[in-house]
């Protein structure tokens, strides 16, 4: 919400610079986003009056002007603009001045002639013709500016002289004198060869000596359009030039900023949704008045009325959808003269970010900004039968709104209709069929209160949130409709825009009741942790018009009346906030919590997560964060079959895009995406981990089962299957998981390399899967490297966590070590050999570790030699070599029996 400080000062006077004002308002609850000095960029620009002008000695299109700028001596400025005349008041950017857009003006020479500044056009001042409609420039087609498109075939002879016929009644004429009669009104004396005529024209570009095309029949000086000529043929004949000021009371030397309304400051507020009342100048003025504790001067609109006709005869209002329209207020204006609105109104609208259009439309916008009450004006002649009906739309009913769009409505929409058709979409936008146009004469002003939810849903369904709907949807104060419509009528009279009819149509579909809340100063202090005296609290409330019936400041609890515009104040907590706002949030003391102490901490699951993270980092893995939503095509990319039940995902109905439209049921695609990204960034290797969630259907209340998964992924020179396996073993060891096994999956896992994948077990519990990503999957991701991933379920890891360690006495007797190498079939796994070794041992074997696998010379084809280091020890004595040998012999026996492995 933008606020013009000039406009604000009409209601409340505050002496504070923008920065202090912003800070003070922010601290009382009206957050200021930024402040803006409208004239910040304009400096050293004044009003000047053209004393004389001569053609530039060295240019066919420039003028040398002497200008009174309120200094002792006039200054000289060279310009290329043609719309100026001696006596014109113009904006002059003096030597060392600045203009919007950071433009700097300094004196200099133009084609050898000194120029001490610049006369400004509208655009150079950051304005356009909507701000100053009278500044529209109509250029004449000057024959001395004529440049034929084809020099060989000119449409107008180069040596044309006054009196020569151009076509029909159009002849060449020479201007001998120009008199300025008013805004865009000139009288030009023209010599036509034989004699001379005096012609009225709105063309601003004429000067003595110019040759023009004169329509003798119409007594009209031709424009480009009249001659059906192209711009290129008359290069200097453009609707642009200097902004000729027609403002009362300005004189040479005056600062330009107040003249063009650039002396205002605009403050941009962030208004929270609970305070729709602050979406208006008056609403913010109330806050400013309460914040600074200075009086608020509100204005009661006074309407003279007396327009011809009887309102009740001309207009009837019915509200069949009374539940959606608590109040409908309307007045009528006749003999409307559509015209631009006055400068002060345009300036204020513009300062608040609203584009001026015409007096009637501007009045509705002005009132909406001032009162926060959306207004609508429609052309009475299109209200068939003189009857306004506020009803639900029929299913499929169509209405073309003001923006030219055809809207298809449903029964959930509320429309303003006449007896035959809808003429407006209530609270959202008017209909094109009843729009105010240039020849509108009779206008109905609607100032109504509609149901917020209905407007919000209606606007949402059509995808057209407008300024009006945004206000209505928050719920407006029904008591505001009447002052607002009266204010509109008052402005009509002030602007002389029409005649207001006596009387008001006011349909009330609710019973206004004062809103009473019990105030309890002790409760407020208890909530805030303060010790503010009761009377002081009531005084703060009074600042925002929350008062007791007697308007006193009692010393204890009392009933207070909440003003109609403060629908957000419902109970003691809201009153506490009002007190706190004006007492000052930063004056509330700071205390530490008392009361029963609680024992904080982390749950076992959270501690497990911390452990997993720290082991992963010790193993060199970096932590990542990935999105929980993925593209449905991800399941294809990881080669899950079409009928894989794991494809059943939570699907977002309104996703940002297909890529983020389903909740992942696997962390694999997220990890692969990040590995790919790093690979594409040419990072040589990467080791990554994340504790991420997967979202499986079937949770309580239709929610998801959100399982956490430790996702690991890596690639690079030092990566292979066993590097990843080692990290996982480290993790499982850290959590003291028992009986850890890695087995080829019983069901093939299509995402992984079929020969380099293992399911990870602790006992009978399957914890997850690890291995090399299937080359086809890597290829789909565009990675030409071996990717390794692991997915370990946190729930299973949690269950596999071993108990706290118990001290085992250190060995007292020395161990005997034996290395054995056995030859077996290639198909026999190391795991099977280890199992056989443990099985064969007779109680002395403490450790067995693989140290070599050999294939080649000395070992038959299809066989391998596997070497283990065995550690044997007894707890109660030193072993003899014989004892150790007996055990080893037994072990070799079992290796032979179970695995066909023979000592090498």
């Amino acid at each position, binding site marked *: 919400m933008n606020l013009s400080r000039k406009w604000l000062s009409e209601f409340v006077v505050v002496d504070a610079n923008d920065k202090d004002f912003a800070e003070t308002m922010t601290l009382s609850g009206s957050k200021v986003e930024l402040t803006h000095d409208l004239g910040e960029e304009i400096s050293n620009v004044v009003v000047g009056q053209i004393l004389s002008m001569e053609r530039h000695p060295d240019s066919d299109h420039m003028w040398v002007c002497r200008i009174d700028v309120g200094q002792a001596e006039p200054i000289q400025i060279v310009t290329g603009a043609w719309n100026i005349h001696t006596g014109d008041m113009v904006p002059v950017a003096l030597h060392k001045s600045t203009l919007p857009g950071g433009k700097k003006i300094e004196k200099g020479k133009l084609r050898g002639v000194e120029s001490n500044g610049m006369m400004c056009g509208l655009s150079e001042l950051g304005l356009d013709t909507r701000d100053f409609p009278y500044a529209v420039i109509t250029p004449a087609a000057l024959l001395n500016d004529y440049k034929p498109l084809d020099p060989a075939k000119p449409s107008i002879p180069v040596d044309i002289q006054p009196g020569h016929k151009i076509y029909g009644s159009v002849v060449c004429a020479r201007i001998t004198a120009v008199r300025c009669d008013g805004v865009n009104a000139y009288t030009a004396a023209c010599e036509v060869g034989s004699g001379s005529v005096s012609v009225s024209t709105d063309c601003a570009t004429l000067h003595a000596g110019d040759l023009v095309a004169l329509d003798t029949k119409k007594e009209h000086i031709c424009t480009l359009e009249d001659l059906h000529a192209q711009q290129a043929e008359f290069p200097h004949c453009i609707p642009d030039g200097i902004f000729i000021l027609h403002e009362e009371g300005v004189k040479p030397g005056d600062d330009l900023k107040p003249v063009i309304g650039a002396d205002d400051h605009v403050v941009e507020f962030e208004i929270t949704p609970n305070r729709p009342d602050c979406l208006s100048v008056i609403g913010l003025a109330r806050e400013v008045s309460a914040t600074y504790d200075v009086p608020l001067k509100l204005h009661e609109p006074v309407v003279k009325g007396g327009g011809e006709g009887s309102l009740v005869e001309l207009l009837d209002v019915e509200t069949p959808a009374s539940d959606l329209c608590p109040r409908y207020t309307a007045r009528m204006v006749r003999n409307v003269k559509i015209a631009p609105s006055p400068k002060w109104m345009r300036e204020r609208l513009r300062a608040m970010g609203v584009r001026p259009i015409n007096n009637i439309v501007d009045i509705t916008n002005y009132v909406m900004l001032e009162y926060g009450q959306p207004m609508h004006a429609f052309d009475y002649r299109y209200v068939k039968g003189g009857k306004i009906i506020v009803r639900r739309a029929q299913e499929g009913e169509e209405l073309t709104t003001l923006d030219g769009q055809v809207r298809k409505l449903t029964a959930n929409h509320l429309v303003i209709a006449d007896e035959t058709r809808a003429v407006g979409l209530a609270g959202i936008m008017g209909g094109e069929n009843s729009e105010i146009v240039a020849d509108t004469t009779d206008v109905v002003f609607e100032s109504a209160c509609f149901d917020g939810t209905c407007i919000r849903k209606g606007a949402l369904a059509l995808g057209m949130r407008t300024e009006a709907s945004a206000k209505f949807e928050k719920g407006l104060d029904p008591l505001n409709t009447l002052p607002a419509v009266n204010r509109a009528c008052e402005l009509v009279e002030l602007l002389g825009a029409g005649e207001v009819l006596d009387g008001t149509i006011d349909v009330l579909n609710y019973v206004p009741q004062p809103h009473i809340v019990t105030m309890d100063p002790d409760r407020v202090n208890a909530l805030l942790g303060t010790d503010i005296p009761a009377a002081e609290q009531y005084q703060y409330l009074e600042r925002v018009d929350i008062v007791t019936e007697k308007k006193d400041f009692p010393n204890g609890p009392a009933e207070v009346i909440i003003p109609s515009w403060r629908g957000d104040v419902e109970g003691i907590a809201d009153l506490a906030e009002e007190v706190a706002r004006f007492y000052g949030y930063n004056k509330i003391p700071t205390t530490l919590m008392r009361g029963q102490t*609680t024992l904080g901490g982390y749950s076992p699951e959270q501690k497990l997560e911390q452990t997993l993270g720290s082991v992963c980092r010790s193993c060199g893995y970096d932590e990542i964060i990935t999105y929980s939503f993925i593209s449905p095509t991800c399941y294809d990319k990881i080669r899950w079959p079409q009928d894989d039940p794991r494809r059943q995902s939570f699907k977002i109905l309104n996703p940002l895009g297909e890529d983020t439209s389903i909740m992942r049921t696997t962390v694999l695609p997220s990890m692969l995406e990040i590995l790919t990204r790093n690979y594409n960034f040419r990072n040589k290797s990467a080791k990554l981990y994340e504790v991420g969630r997967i979202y499986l259907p079937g949770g309580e209340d239709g929610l998801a089962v959100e399982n956490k998964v430790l996702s690991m992924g890596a690639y690079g020179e030092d990566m292979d299957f066993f590097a990843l396996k080692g990290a996982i073993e480290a993790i499982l060891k850290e959590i003291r998981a028992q009986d850890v096994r890695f087995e080829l999956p019983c069901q093939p896992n299509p995402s992984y390399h079929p020969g380099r994948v293992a399911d990870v077990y602790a006992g009978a519990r399957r914890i997850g899967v690890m291995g090399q990503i299937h080359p086809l999957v890597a290829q789909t991701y565009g990675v030409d490297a071996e990717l390794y991933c692991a997915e370990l379920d946190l729930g299973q890891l949690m269950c596999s966590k071993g108990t706290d360690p118990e001290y085992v006495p250190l060995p007292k007797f020395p161990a005997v070590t034996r290395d054995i190498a056995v030859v077996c079939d290639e198909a026999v796994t190391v795991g099977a050999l280890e199992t056989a070794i443990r099985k064969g041992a007779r109680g002395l074997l403490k450790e067995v570790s693989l140290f070599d696998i050999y294939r080649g010379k000395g070992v038959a084809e299809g066989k391998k030699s596997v070497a283990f280091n065995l550690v044997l020890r007894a707890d109660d004595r030193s072993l003899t070599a014989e004892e150790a040998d007996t055990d080893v012999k037994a072990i070799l026996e079992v290796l032979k029996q179970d695995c066909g492995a023979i000592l090498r």
Partner: protein
Amino acid sequence: MKEQLAKIRAEALAAMDGAQSTAELDALRVQYLGKKGELTAVLKQMGKLSAEERPAMGQLANEVRAALEEAIEVNARKLEEKALEQRLEAEKLDVTIPGKQVKLGHKHPMYIALDEIKDIFVGMGFTVLDGPEVELAELNFDRLNAEEGHPSRDWSDTFYFDEDSRVMLRSQTSPMQVRAMDTMELPIRIIAPGRVYRKDEVDATHSPMFHQVEGMVIDKNVTMADLKGTLNTVVEKLYGKGTKTRFRPHHFPFTEPSCEMDVQCHKCGGVGCPTCKGEGWIELLGAGMIHPKVLEMSGIDPKEYSGWAFGMGLERTAMRRFKIADLRLIFENDIRFLEQF
């Protein structure tokens, strides 16, 4: 004989002092003290001496022997020292050669920031809660007093899983307040960090998924002054003692009174600069006293109990903590970024 002994002594001592190696020294020992050594040879002549001469000469000979033995020992030690010195010299390293790499992984900067925050609150007796991200709109909105019609409920703002807008991706961690109130015994002190989702396109400051930390305290006689005191303590622990804060009135449906907490801009010290958009303050979190309606909906009597709650955006905190300029870096997971922390 006396002259002979003196000569041996002088020659031997000179030779021993000049010995360059243990082997050379050893040869000298044999040369003089060995069975066939020069001194031994002289001693063998003792028998030829008269009885009067013998004791004096014997003493002299012993002195010479002792002198030689000592010289051997001294020189041996010297040589050992020299040898060690040489070895050490030979073993000299270029200490500027880099050490053998131990590659440790890195915690994600956002979790570094989160872990700091968690530890601070745990130290103050808070329990850390974890909850669902696929959440009921009832808990995310209704039970938090955000009635139907609240703008954040729009489909343009929030992700939904069904046409009835019943199941959604939580748009804030605040439903954890309700879950805590519904399941925990009073008094309650919790924080609940986690992922939240809003329909924002990705840019330098927005992401459809981001993280928040929710905090809540419910007890008898809890006040807004407690809220301020606790949060100020947290900020001092996060940003250093003496960090200035301010509280501004704000609006959240589930707290009343509500506030936003700002910290003074670390860059300009409150004067105003581009970092703080000229305000001198940077918004840190939203907070407030739990709305009586919210307590009532969870069956807690607002006349007996009161509480406060806050919600804090984590990404922004991490970005400020590590001076990260673009939010996209957080989710890009480039190891060149990750390994800086």
